[in-house]
């Protein structure tokens, strides 16, 4: 936990100076509210974007998309086919700072586990980016709608290079990372360290063990009637990381590239084989597949939950399908099964 005495406070104007220097060395990526950029007309959206000042940052609203696109771009070039020979593209990757809430920092731990070590293979592209990233913690004064980070124990984190809080007319910051310390003033003040949410508005009970009996339950049929397989839950999820691969000729017809693109187990063709055999056609089955991964399957493999309780899937589902409600139903089934079976 942050030591109060290590906190620093600076004004908005000072912040501009600090930012200018910092941004010579780091790309700074943080939540920004963009009016008119919402899906529906005349709506705004809170996004992760490169910012040009601290003041631009939206500290108080949950972002719609997570920051995972920084580490796993929606479309990422793997290599080019120049002269028909696969060849990595040597883009210079600049150091980055990402402003994240506790849950989202936990989400990066999930991605790390998967991409850096999972199955004995290291993902070259993820790793290359990840090394350049420093995490700036931002706090949640109270849980947002649909959040259940406490239940998933992602409400708190110590895994950050710096912590920053927006206050009236300025900022409070606690820098831990040695490299970064140089950029910030050192005027130790007696201000509070990061505050973490301590109580979910609706705590979620994470099932301990899930056997195959859950697969037969009618709830998935119900979800088949509700879910429209739009994939938004996976797109906004900070831990969903599936991808497809496509060879794409750029518009200038120069060397083609093999790229990876986000994929979603909720969307058609995810599990389709050439010859059109698909292993999960029904929406309910896809939802089950996603849901169990988040709360059980990943944990079985990696020892901790994939879901970080950020609630973005619930925020975004056009059908108001709720992760919370679904887990509740799974718990009911398990309970009923353990009593009857």
């Amino acid at each position, binding site marked *: 936990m942050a030591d109060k005495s290590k906190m620093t406070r600076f004004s908005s104007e000072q912040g501009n100076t600090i930012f200018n220097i910092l941004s010579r060395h780091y790309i700074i990526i943080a939540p920004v509210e963009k009016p008119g950029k919402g*899906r529906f*007309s005349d709506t705004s959206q809170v996004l992760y974007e490169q910012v040009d000042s601290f003041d631009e940052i939206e500290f108080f609203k949950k972002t719609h998309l997570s920051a995972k696109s920084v580490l796993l771009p929606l479309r990422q070039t793997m290599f080019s086919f120049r002269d028909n020979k696969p060849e990595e593209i040597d883009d210079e990757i600049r150091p980055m700072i990402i402003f994240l809430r506790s849950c989202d920092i936990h989400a990066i731990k999930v991605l790390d586990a998967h991409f850096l070590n999972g199955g004995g293979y290291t993902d070259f592209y993820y790793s290359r980016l990840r090394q350049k990233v420093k995490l700036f913690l931002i706090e949640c004064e109270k849980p947002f709608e649909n959040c259940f980070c406490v239940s998933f124990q992602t409400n708190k984190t110590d895994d950050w290079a710096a912590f920053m809080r927006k206050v009236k007319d300025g900022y409070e910051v606690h820098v831990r990372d040695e490299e970064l310390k140089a950029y910030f003033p050192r005027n130790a003040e007696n201000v509070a360290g990061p505050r973490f949410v301590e109580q979910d508005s609706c705590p979620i009970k994470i099932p301990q063990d899930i056997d195959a009996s859950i697969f037969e339950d009618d709830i998935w049929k119900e979800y088949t009637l509700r879910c429209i397989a*739009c*994939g938004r839950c996976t*797109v906004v999820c900070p831990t969903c990381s599936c991808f497809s691969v496509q060879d*794409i000729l750029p*518009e200038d017809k120069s060397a083609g590239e093999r790229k990876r*693109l986000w994929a979603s187990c909720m969307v*058609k063709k995810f599990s389709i084989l050439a010859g059109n055999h698909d292993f999960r056609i029904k929406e309910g089955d896809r939802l089950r597949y996603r849901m169990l991964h988040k709360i059980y399957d990943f944990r079985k493999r990696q020892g901790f939950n994939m879901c970080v309780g950020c609630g973005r899937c619930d925020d975004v589902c056009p059908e108001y399908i709720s992760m919370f409600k679904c887990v509740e139903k799974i718990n009911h089934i398990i309970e009923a099964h353990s009593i009857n079976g």
Partner: protein
Amino acid sequence: MYNTKKIIKNAFRISKVRGETAIRLRIPGGHLEVKYLDVIKDLAQRFGNGTVHLTTRQGYEIPGVKLSDIEKVREFMRKMIYEIEKSSNVILEEPEKGYPSAGTRNVSACIGNRVCQFSNSDTTLLAQKLEAAIYPNNYHLKVAVTGCPNDCIKAHMNDIGIIAGVLPEYDKEACILCEACLDNCKMRVTSALRIENYRIVRDEDYCIKCGECILKCPTQAAYRGKLLYRIIIGGRTGKKNPRMAGTFIEDASEEVVLAVCKNVYSFISRYIDPKPPKELIGYIIDRAGFDTFVHEVIKGITLNPEAKLAKKLDNPGYFYPVRK
């Protein structure tokens, strides 16, 4: 006893019941603050028969009102109609006399983007701007604004229909080729999208700017660009030639929409046949010709660069056979 023409001009109706009228209230854009429901209720209970009719143009009609009570009614509703019109920036100069004209009907609008996910604009707000631009006016004109080509307001049956659209912008680098936009456009719209070299290509010739691709895109690779309106004209029902409005200008800006609607009145005033009580604009265009209409209506207007004028007017409909 009563000057029916003045009464009608005041937006009261001459009822089939002798000596009775019906109060007609304009609700531009169809959105009403509920505090006025008290006034409407009182009107209906004190002067009417305790009922209201919700009209298809989103006004109220309060039936069963004695013509002899009209003065009292005007006084009773003076403040309300003044305020409602004022919220559209229409200042009634003599609200105590009721509405100054009835020819130009309540500008109606679908529920719009205050509620509806499909709507590309705040239709009520545009309806209110239109009200400010064209009301009061004695020429008979029905204008309706709809938020997307679904046209829930049935703009196609209005003299002027405004259909809000959006130019979908596309960020290829955010597209994960889920094909949600593609499948949806094919199923519900015009199949204007295709995949070419792993990106979505939108065929401008087919895109009707409904914005559904934006709604369906999980990553928002498709996102909202310019708000553009399709102006359709000449729709109507009636006893001669019920017909749908046809496209006049595609992809007009809001400024153009407002200017066109204003200019339509000068066209009407120049070309209307004064004989029949209310010649509808479609019939006037039939007589004057579409070219004349275009010439008169776009006079003095600088079209936004996207705007495309129709070369001819197509008003699909049918004629009741007329005995020669």
